């Protein structure tokens, strides 16, 4: 095998993404791009070492998969535990979980956009790496940086209010939640929202202008026509509890099923060159059944959004590229901001609902079902927790399909496309590397999650010759 290898370029680590990964580009003898792969380089084994633990511990164990969206794991895990207990939550418990979830969407999406991705859009892909980061943002665009920091802080404070800590909070328990919301806390959350919405509208304008001014780039940049997967409730965008819908590239609803039936519809493929598996829609097989998730996946999969301002933005979004389904990868950023708007509006709805101040927090129960599935939309896409327990509640098997995994095939294809556009031979410009990384960044991957590991997400580009020798390693310095 080794002697059939071509020249290879490796980007390692991929930075400003959330996880550990590298990109390799194999070149042919005449220097053309032969094969491009995005490798996730870390594995921690949560599914395996959870065995034998009491299922009630899982909402505390599994958030350690990811410190960026720990609330997603906390909630998906608690929902799987609810299913094992066979209970339906009180309205107060269900709504308080959703309040925390909206806080997480605001903070995590703000991090992705303001801290990690906006430097590429504002400074350009070819800007000096020394300024193309959050520190440069703080210097050159202080208002935007402060707005982003404030938005993230607001979401984190909601999480801390309910769960005691900003990272790895503890609020959901099997059958409910462990703390109520006080009226003055609720009032504070409502009071801060108008300013944040204003900041968000400015960010939306920034992205819309960027996409309009760079229409050619947006149309070309890692564009893929894929299917899209996401939760819906009555056809509307849903983040906490809904049915799983798959939509075809042309906008037809391919399938819609209850989350507990996920395993009949979704399988995971393994490649020997990545610790991240490749989920696919079983009836179509791998790789044909690959699809995308996350902001673009959800926005494409839903019919509409239930809150007014986000619904209007969605209509504008769909018109902006013509036929309704948006396949442009750079539009992930736009979709992400529409989702922040939805999260703010939905949060406002929830906070005005008298149920959130209720004190009926928990339904108790014993192991009623030997199996439980919990599914939520994490900021990066559909997150599935599935536990099988013995009669006393010890975990016998655990299965986790994490948001970023669903995008694995698309990330690989996108990086390949950009490599073909920008690389000819081993002399690779830094800007080309950054463009490949930005493909990954569009998906805002949480690679920690993906391999049930988190990781740093540095990226290295390695160029290998036709004998498989590394002729050049490009890292950003």
């Amino acid at each position, binding site marked *: 095998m080794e002697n059939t290898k071509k020249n290879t370029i490796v980007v390692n680590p991929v*930075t400003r993404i959330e996880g550990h990964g590298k990109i390799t580009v194999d070149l042919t003898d005449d220097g053309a791009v032969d094969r491009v792969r995005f490798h996730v380089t870390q594995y921690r084994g949560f599914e395996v070492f959870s065995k034998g633990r009491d299922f009630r511990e899982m909402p505390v164990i599994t958030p350690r998969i990811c410190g960026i969206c720990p609330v997603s794991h906390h909630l998906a895990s608690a929902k799987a535990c609810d299913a094992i207990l066979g209970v339906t939550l009180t309205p107060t418990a269900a709504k308080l979980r959703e309040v925390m979830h909206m806080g997480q969407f605001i903070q995590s999406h703000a991090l992705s956009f303001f801290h990690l991705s906006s430097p590429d859009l504002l400074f350009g892909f070819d800007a000096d790496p020394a300024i193309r980061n959050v520190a440069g943002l703080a210097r050159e665009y202080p208002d935007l940086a402060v707005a982003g920091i404030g938005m993230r802080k607001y979401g984190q404070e909601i999480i801390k209010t309910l769960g005691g800590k900003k990272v790895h909070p503890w609020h959901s328990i099997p059958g409910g939640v462990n703390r109520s919301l006080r009226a003055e806390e609720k009032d504070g959350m409502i009071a801060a929202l108008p300013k944040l919405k204003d900041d968000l509208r400015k960010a939306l304008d920034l992205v819309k202008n960027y996409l309009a001014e760079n229409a050619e780039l947006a149309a070309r940049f890692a564009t893929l026509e894929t299917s899209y997967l996401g939760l819906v409730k009555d056809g509307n965008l849903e983040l906490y509890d809904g049915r799983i819908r798959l939509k075809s590239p042309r906008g037809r609803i391919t399938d819609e099923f209850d989350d507990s039936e996920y395993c009949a519809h979704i399988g995971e493929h393994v490649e020997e060159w990545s610790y991240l598996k490749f989920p696919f829609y079983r009836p179509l097989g791998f790789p044909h059944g690959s699809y995308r998730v996350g902001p673009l996946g959800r926005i494409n999969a839903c019919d509409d959004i239930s809150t007014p301002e986000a619904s209007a933005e969605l209509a504008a979004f769909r018109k902006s590229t013509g036929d309704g389904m948006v396949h442009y990868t750079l539009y992930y950023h736009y979709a992400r901001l529409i989702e922040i708007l939805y999260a703010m509006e939905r949060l406002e709805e929830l906070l005005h609902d008298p149920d959130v101040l209720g004190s009926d927090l928990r339904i108790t129960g014993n192991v009623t079902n030997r199996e439980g599935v919990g599914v939520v939309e994490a900021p990066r896409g559909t997150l599935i927790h599935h536990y099988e327990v013995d009669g006393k509640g010890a975990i016998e098997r655990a299965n986790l399909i994490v948001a970023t995994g669903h995008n694995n095939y698309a990330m690989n294809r996108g990086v390949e496309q950009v490599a073909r556009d920008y690389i000819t031979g081993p002399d690779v410009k830094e800007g080309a590397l950054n463009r490949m990384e930005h493909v990954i960044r569009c998906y805002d991957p949480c690679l920690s999650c993906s391999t049930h590991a988190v990781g740093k997400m540095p990226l290295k580009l390695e160029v290998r010759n036709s004998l498989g020798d590394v002729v050049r390693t490009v890292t950003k310095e």
Partner: protein
Amino acid sequence: MTMAKPKIASVWLEACAGCHMSFLDIDERIVDLLGKVELTATPITDIKTFPEVEVGVIEGALGNEEELHLAKELRERCKILIAWGDCAVFGGINCMRNFLPAGQVLKEGYVDTVSTVNPDGVLPRQDLPALLPQAIPVDRAVKVDVYVPGCPPDADTIYYVFSEILEGRIPTVPTDIMRYD
């Protein structure tokens, strides 16, 4: 001695990024801090290799060969090495796999899980760092100067440590803000 704009490099190894997130949770103070220190290679910047720095920060345990290598490399290139969080300090949750052989952890994760379709039993290995037999805390491999435990350490604790270093002191986290999760 106070340092002029000390350089900082940080890395996120076998962990969840939560410590780096807790660092970002210093919120507005980050703008001020970024005026006093120079971030070099970190997960939130685009510089990929560690230069010589005053302060190195490691989040995470060491669970594979690449992580072990990076810990050694950062140790060589920094004057003060900080271990952030329970994973770096103690090994943390990663050590739950240490009761099983690494090969079994791989096989169960990539072959036996219920939604995996892997009839040929393919295991990830090509172009990937191999797992160490066990996940270990940082100081099992290199000397650590400052321990900041917690899952994650609170943002105020992280900020305190940087403030002390900027004052020229090697900090010890005081008990009132020291936390083990």
